[in-house]
């Protein structure tokens, strides 16, 4: 029941908000449709406007068209992986702006360190839940 109330309120808040303020945007980059859907639901609850990309190249094109406030980024993807995307993003004009949070099953120190060196702002090790997403987004000042 809580979820139902939540979603009804969400619609009201959103339609109200769009009239007055701009919502923060988050690009969700993951080759799994299921993960993108789960992340989308959590981020919409946190009142983000979301966009999705199934690999790093699509994500890079989307960023070059319009830089989002945040990127939730998987590591292993076809065409272009997450770490390559991040390197390219940070080189692009305005690409230093988005806050990038890795969200991946890679949970060893080498991967985490590499991500941070390349310019990630936070790092989520899958599996995640809404508490983890919320806590991490709070830490980087997105909410």
């Amino acid at each position, binding site marked *: 029941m809580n979820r139902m109330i939540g979603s009804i309120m969400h619609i009201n808040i959103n339609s109200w908000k769009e009239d007055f303020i701009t919502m923060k945007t988050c690009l969700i980059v993951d080759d799994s449709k299921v993960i993108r859907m789960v992340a989308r639901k959590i981020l919409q609850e946190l009142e983000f406007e979301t966009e999705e990309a199934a690999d790093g190249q699509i994500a890079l094109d989307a960023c070059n068209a319009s830089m989002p406030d945040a990127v939730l980024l998987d590591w292993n993807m076809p065409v272009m992986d997450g770490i390559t995307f991040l390197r390219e993003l940070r080189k692009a004009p305005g690409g230093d702006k988005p806050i990038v949070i890795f969200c991946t099953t890679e*949970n*060893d*120190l080498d991967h*985490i*360190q590499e991500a*941070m060196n390349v310019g990630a702002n*936070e*790092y*989520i*090790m899958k*599996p*995640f*839940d809404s*508490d*983890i997403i919320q*806590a*991490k987004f*709070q*830490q980087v000042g997105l909410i």
Partner: protein
Amino acid sequence: MNPADFEFISSLILSRSGLVLTPDKSYLLESRLMPVARKHGLKGLEDLIETVRSRKEEALIVEITEAMTTNESFFFRDTKPFDLLRDEVLPPILDKRSSNKRLRIWCAAASSGQEPYSIAIVLKELGARLAGWNIEIIGTDISKDILTKAEKGQYSQFEVQRGMPIQLLLKYFDKVDENWIVKPEIKNMVTFKYWNLLDDLKNLGGFDIVFCRNVLIYFDAETKGRVLEGVSKLMPDDGMMFLGGAETVLGVSDKFKPVSGQRGVYARA
């Protein structure tokens, strides 16, 4: 707890919340439900379970379910109190104690250790400023099992991601298989003790700063007042106390007063 009681309470919680309680997690029953039992004037878990069995009181069942499903403790829970500790509460206290360089902090509901370790990390991050200081963080709780977990300082990937920023995780934890263990330099700053807040507190010694967050909520007003009076006696005049976001001293104790502009922070009155 006997197997029949465990079976009864775990299936009740399962049917109400979907939370699966395996026997290895039975310490959670003790740490979460003892406060509920106490609040209702019951001696222990057995009495609580017996009461639920015989009366089937909906309000009590809901309370039990809520106590069991409250999220596991977070590192840096609520964030703000730890910023206040670093930026507002610590500086004047450190100034005043710069000659003897001694600081004692108490976590009155240490649970599985997230709060005392978070405090230790805040202090460690101050770096050279605290070089040569004798710092003691004491964490107490009424559950021996949960204190054993706290002492180990070992957390699952899921647990560390609840509140620990990735940079601090890399800096202050060692990864062992799929778990993360607090490094000795942090662990050594914290001592855990089994203690009931309703018992005499004197032997805990004095404390400059007390974290007493989200524990008074389980007591009635008179008991809250008594605990706060006991806490105040352990603190010097310039000592500071933190309460949880939903807690207050107003109408409960005249031993503390809220500090304006610092939510959740209380000074000796």
